């Protein structure tokens, strides 16, 4: 099992450019999440999905879009990159049963810089 795989690991964008961060998991988890982490600020939820075809906004969704066409994949799209989107992005997934531990399984992170 690869777990949660994110690509790319690093990317530099110019203001106004667009890009997609890819995320895939092979654990058959229904729940998937995108977080961003700024220095000293913990993790903020951008979007999450409870299953294929279902997505919902988290705490900081502005400037981002997501889709969930399959259970495995949950890409995050930045349409018009802004310097405020410079951050480290983590994709995560989890089980969705009542008995689960609540543990999120994280990808290795994607460091995005917008200049």
């Amino acid at each position, binding site marked *: 099992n690869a777990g949660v795989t994110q690509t790319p690991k690093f990317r530099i964008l110019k203001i106004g450019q667009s890009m997609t961060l890819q995320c895939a998991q092979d654990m058959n988890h229904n729940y998937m999440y995108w977080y961003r982490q700024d220095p000293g600020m913990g*993790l903020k939820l951008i979007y999450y999905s*409870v299953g294929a075809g279902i997505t919902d906004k988290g705490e900081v969704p502005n400037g981002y879009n997501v889709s969930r066409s399959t259970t495995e994949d949950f890409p995050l799209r930045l349409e018009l990159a802004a310097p405020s989107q410079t951050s480290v992005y983590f994709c995560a997934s989890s089980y969705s049963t009542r008995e689960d531990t609540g543990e999120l399984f*994280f990808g290795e992170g994607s460091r995005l810089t917008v200049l």
Partner: protein
Amino acid sequence: EDKVVQSPLSLVVHEGDTVTLNCSYEVTNFRSLLWYKQEKKAPTFLFMLTSSGIEKKSGRLSSILDKKELFSILNITATQTGDSAIYLCAGRSSGAGSYQLTFGKGTKLSVIP
């Protein structure tokens, strides 16, 4: 709005010291509290706590939850340089279809030889 506050935000100790990290929470329909360790990359899971007063233990790490006072502590005894990391606390709610975590800002622990 759910809120999780960790203290201290950073801590420097010498190897062998014992440390206590604090986490207070205000989470609607609280279900559980989770601790993660983050070294260079992705956070890794340490503990999940759902019941007051029951200590979870793993080696030199232990944690306990107080649901009346809405806080949790993470203890690390006989610290080692490998314990240097950011420790994240997160509260989990149990709304219908909601498995979201609200994270604190983290405590950055530095263990010096």
